[in-house]
Each structure stands twice: as structure tokens, then as C-alpha cells.
């Protein structure tokens, strides 16, 4: 129980099935406040499904999902969970296509999300500065007034990362952030995440082993909906079961 109390995110025995197919089978995991965790695992292991469960997109059939030791996430909807401070970047980049890059970020900026608050909202100087910072981070300053639909695949990835940052969540769930990025960008992203981790907790899913190594954090390996192995990157990379199902020879 202590484990749960002192954790930021606590999953215990989470099971999800779709029309009989068991995507998660008793997944348990604990993320401590301020921790960054890398999650790897074969295609179809259930990584994205796990994030769906945490963010309220999918209701688990069984198991406990607690945030900050006590908040039961399984009883809340997406918006409520997001307001708790859990932000997410999707595996397939999803941005608001018919709005400008800048407006995408404005929407994501932290702030009161109430109906009337947004109706009468005016952009403060602080917010504007923050926007410029973010645009610089994601290298889209010169495209800030373009519609998001005109971005290339990789640029959308960046924009989505920017939106995640704009929310300033307590916990960031990042699903395959470097897919479609060049090696150099991959490294940059790793640094970015590490910097963020100074103040926030991060859960990152990736298949890029260089990237995971660069993060230098504890790694959890999922397989068939449950934890297969956990530990440092070197530990899991040498685990024969991980090599068998995931890394290959």
C-alpha cells in the first residue's frame, strides 16, 4: 500500500481485453514522482493500450490505476485526467489540422479550461513569451502561422511534443516521440526530455534503442500485456527473453 501512496502513478493488475483478445494481462507498474521511465516491448505488447488506460480512453476490465497515490483514474474521463496534470503525445501525430501551428499551442497552453474562462480569455504577455519559447524548441517559428495540416509528418511530431510541453503537465506520457526523426533530432529530443524530467515525471515509449540508451533511465519491457523485465538498459538488453521477443539477434 505504501508503494501506492508514495507513487505518482500506480498500476496494479490492469487487464484489458477487446472482443476476447487480451491486450493487457495483469500489468503492474509504479512510477515515482520525478521519475522518468522508458518503456519498450514488441509491437502489440500493449504499450499504447497502457497509455489509453491511464488517460481514460480505455476502461480497464480489472485492476487499479492510481495517480498521486490516491486518485482513481479509472473513474474519471479524459478531460478530468488531463486536468489532473497528465499530458500525452500520441503515437500517430494528432494535431488540430485546420488551425495554425501557433493556435495549436495556444489551445494547449496551461490555464483555466472552463467555458467562460476561455470565452473571455485574453493572451497575456507571459503566455506570449512562453509560446515563442515553445516554437523555438520545436523549430517551427517560421511556420507558426501556417495551418497544421500543411506540416510534414515529422513536423507534426514536433508540434505535438510542443503541445505536450505547453500543457505543463505533472506527468508526461510520450508515445514514440522520435519516430520519423533524424538521428540528430533523436538525440536532441532525448536531451529535451531529460531537461523536462528535472521538474516533471515522464513515461516514454520508444523502439529506438539509441534513444533509450541516451535517456539513461530505468527501462520496463512489456510483453503480451505484462511486464517481462525491468531494470537498467544494459540489464534488459542482455536479458535473453528480451532479446528473444524484442531485440532480435
Amino acid at each position, binding site marked *: 500500500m505504501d508503494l501506492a501512496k508514495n507513487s505518482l502513478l500506480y498500476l496494479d493488475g490492469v487487464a484489458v481485453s477487446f472482443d476476447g483478445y487480451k491486450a493487457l494481462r495483469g500489468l503492474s507498474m509504479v512510477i515515482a514522482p520525478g521519475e522518468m521511465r522508458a518503456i519498450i516491448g514488441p509491437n502489440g505488447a500493449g504499450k499504447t493500450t497502457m497509455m489509453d488506460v491511464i488517460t481514460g*480512453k480505455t476502461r480497464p476490465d480489472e485492476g487499479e490505476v492510481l495517480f498521486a497515490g490516491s486518485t482513481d483514474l479509472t473513474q474519471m474521463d479524459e478531460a478530468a485526467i488531463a486536468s489532473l496534470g497528465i499530458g500525452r503525445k500520441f503515437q500517430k501525430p494528432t494535431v488540430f489540422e485546420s488551425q495554425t501551428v501557433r493556435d495549436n499551442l495556444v489551445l494547449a497552453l496551461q490555464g483555466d479550461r472552463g467555458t467562460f474562462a476561455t470565452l473571455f480569455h485574453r493572451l497575456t504577455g507571459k503566455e506570449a513569451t512562453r509560446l515563442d519559447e515553445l516554437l523555438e524548441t520545436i523549430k517551427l517559428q517560421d511556420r507558426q502561422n501556417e495551418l497544421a495540416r500543411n506540416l510534414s509528418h515529422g513536423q507534426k511530431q514536433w508540434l505535438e511534443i510542443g503541445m505536450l510541453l505547453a500543457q505543463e503537465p505533472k506527468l508526461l506520457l510520450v508515445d514514440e516521440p522520435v519516430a520519423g526523426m533524424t538521428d540528430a533530432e533523436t538525440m536532441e529530443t532525448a536531451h529535451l526530455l531529460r531537461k523536462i524530467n528535472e521538474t516533471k515525471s515522464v513515461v516514454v515509449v520508444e523502439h529506438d534503442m539509441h534513444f533509450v540508451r541516451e535517456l539513461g533511465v530505468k527501462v520496463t519491457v512489456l510483453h503480451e500485456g505484462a511486464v517481462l523485465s525491468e531494470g537498467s538498459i544494459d540489464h534488459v538488453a542482455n536479458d535473453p527473453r528480451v532479446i528473444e521477443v524484442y531485440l532480435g539477434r
Partner: protein
Amino acid sequence: MLHSARRLAARAFAPLLLTFGLVLAVLAWLPSAAMAQASIDAALEKLTTDSYSDTIDAVQAIAVSGHPRAAVIIQALQGGQLAFSAAEKKVYVRVGNDLQEAGSGTAPATAPADLADVRANNRVRGIVSAAMGSLTLLNPDPARRLEAAASVLKSRDAAALPALDQALARETDPAVKAAFAAARAAIVLNKTDASDNERVAAIDLIRKRGGQDALGLLRGLPADTPKRVKDAAEAGAKVVETQLALWSGAQNVWYGLSLGSVLLLAAIGLAITFGVMGIINMAHGEMVMIGAYTTFVVQEVIRAHAPGLFDWSLTIAIPLAFLTSGLVGVILERTVIRWLYGRPLETLLATWGISLILMQAVRTQFGANNREVGAPSFMSGSFDIGHMSITWGRLWIIVFALAVFAALILVLKRTPLGLQMRAVTQNRSMASAMGIRTPFVDALTFGLGCGIAGIAGVALSQIDNVSPNLGQSYIIDSFMVVVFGGVGNLWGTLVGAMTLGVINKFLEPYAGAVLGKILVLVFIILFIQKRPRGLFALKGRSVEA
């Protein structure tokens, strides 16, 4: 005997009594030919006054005249083949294009100039058919005897008892025999001079027979009926009532399914153009209408050139309606719809425009009025299952709707074309990259949806107006059905249509047609709250994204 028969016949409740009078007269007393001739001549003269009451007197007189041509004359009147000349005071029977003098059967030298039909109104027709029916208690055709039994059951007249007893004694066919027995029981039950035991036995028999008529009989006893009989009748009525309630449940299901099949037919084409292709096809109803007009044209051509084929008219119309509506669909797809893929909401605007154009085109070509589409003989009439009546037309429509549905499912799920259709509508550019000729498949899919709507038009022409507005009256229901069932799921459309049909038919008797319809709409609204993606919702990641 004759005398008493005549006196009875003169009474107000004449028709059936007269019938039995005739039977008895024939059986018991053969009048001399001369007397018959005299009475029929007097009667025939009455037919030339063009007055309904004279006609009724004449029919009654002819019926009891015993004249050899009596049946011919009455039959002619029934068939509208009896004509008269007021100037000559003569009556003629039309036989094809020839005339026969009614009394003699000889052909007149010249046809009279002022020949006019002997007219009949409902009252005359009632008496005529009773007179004709009189012969049928002993008719060689068992079906006719059954009808005769039914009419006796309805009349419950004690005077018919002896004839009925006689017929009963001779009867060999068990079904007819049962019917005769029931008719007899109906008479006995209402006969004040029958013994209580006889009447209770009759009640028993009627109760066993059951049905709406039985209920009417058991509940409609005269006021002076002894208590014992009354109680027995009431007990019997209760039994019949429960049984009828069950049957009426079944009947409602049947009505519901048959309404459902109409909804299904109307919606199924839309399940393709809207459900599969995502086109908000407001012109769907007009495709149905075009199918109905195709049926009309086919029937016109058949009527004009090959009347013998009339019973085949729908069979011929089905492929033609499919092709006509389908072709219109293909043309529309190639000229308008194809520019709108990826802009589904704009298809609403364009197809609405198309619908206006098609409606007005049909109005200009065929006029604003309803057009007559007839029913082939195999779709007319009805039969009974227990105490439930099933009309052939409705039965065929259900069968037809299910057949169309099955065919469509097969095409979509089991043929390469079906796979290509689904692939194209799910991701047009990727389908193209896989080598699928998307323009061809698009045109064909839209054409298929429209063609099926056209087929629906053939069936709907049997139960509804064939007018330029035909489509408008189905478009809303069609969308409701497709959406209620779950967009993109054909099975949903089937189950949705049947569910809405049955619900509607169960609400209607309690709430009335108007409130019933309102309640069905409210039901749909509430149901969608529970299942926001319809009855058979598509599930899974791609849908929820």
C-alpha cells in the same frame, strides 16, 4: 312452403332468407315453366326503370322465379353485364360483344339505341351476392361452400337452419363440415326457442372455434337469454378473448415485420450510398421514385402490348428498375459526386439539388398526379394462419426485402468487387495505390446503392403512391433506420428496420398512429443516448480515434 318463403323474403332482413327460400323452393317445389316465364317478364320490366328499389324487387322476384335463366341474369347483373333499353322496356345480357335478350337468351335483331347498364349500388350488390350465394351451400366447390358457411355465420338467421342441416348432412369435407357446424351453432345460440342445453353446446362449439366472430357471437346475446346460457357465454368469451389477445400479439409482430421490411427496402440502398460511401444522399428517395416509375412504365407497356404478361410485370420491372436507377446513379457519380469525396457534408447540398431536379423532371414528364400501378394476382388477397390474417402482398414484400438484403451482403462480403468497394470508401487514395480502379469502383458502388433503391421502388409501388413525392416520404425514415442500426453496418440496417417496425406496431394500438410515431422518434433519440453509434456500433480503435 313457397308462400312462407315469399313472406319471409318480403321482410326487411331479406337477402339471406331469400337465399334459403330459393334453395328450398328448388328442392321442394318445381314451378311450372309458364308461371316462371310470367313472373320473370314482370321482374325484367322493373329492371328498366333505373331505380334501385325496383332493381331490388326484380332481383328478388327473379331469384325465386325458378326460371332457367334466373342464374344467368343475376350473374350478369353482378358482373355489370346487364343492360336495358328504357324505350323498348327490354333487358339484355351482354356476352362479349353480343347481346342476348335476358328472358329468352335469343339475340335481338338490332341493338337498341338507348342501351344503358343496369346500375347497382351497395345495397343491390348485397342482395345480388346473397342471391348468388344461395346456390353455394350445395356448390360442388368446397371453397364456395366455406364462403357460404361464413355468410350464414354472420347472418345467424334461424330460417336458414333447415337448409343448413340438410347441407350439413351431405357434407363430406371436414373443414366445410366444421364451418357448417359453427354456422349452425351461431344460429342455435341466438334462437330463443332452443333449449338451454342446446345453446350451451353451441357455446362450446363456438368457443372452440374462436376468433373475432366468435367473440361477437358470445357477447352479443339477446337480452332475454337465460342466465345459465349467459354465464356460459361469458366464460366462453373470456377464453376466446385471451386466445385472441395472444393472436393479436402475433399479428402485431407480423405487422411490425412487414412495416420493417418496407423500411428495410427503403433504407438498404442508403446503407450503401450513405452507410458505406459516406455520401449524405438526399436524392436517395428519388432513386426509389425512379424505380417506382419504371414499374409504372413497364405496366403501361404491358397493358398496351401484352396484357397477358401482366402478372409478370413486377418480375420484369425489377431488373429494369435496378438498371434505370443504377444508371442515373452512375451518371450522377461521374458528373457530381466524384468531385466531392473527402467533403462529405457538401454531398448534402449537391444531392439535395439533384433531388429537386429529379423530382421536377419526373413531374414534368409524368405529371404531378399519382400514377396507377396494379398488383399482380399473386400479390392480391390474403390467407389466415390461425386467427391471424396475412396478406400475400406483404408476405412477398418481406420475402423480397430479405432476398435483396441477402444478395447485397453476399456481394459486399463475398466478391472481389465488394472488397474493393469497401477498400475504396475507407481510403480512396490508398486503394488507388493498391491498383484498384477507384473511379470505376466509385461509380459502381454508387450505382449499386441507387439501383437497389430502384428495386425498392418496385416494391413500394405496390403499397404507396407513385408520385413525384414518393421519395420524399421515405428519405427521413431511411436515414433514421440506417443511423439507428449503426452507420456502415448492413446487419444494423436489417435489425434496425425490423425493430423500428415492430416497436411502431406495438405502440400504435395504444397510442394511436400520430402519438405512436412521436414516441418512436423519442425512442430513437433516447436510444442513441445509450448507444451513440447505433444498434450495431462499429467498434475499435479506428472508429474511436
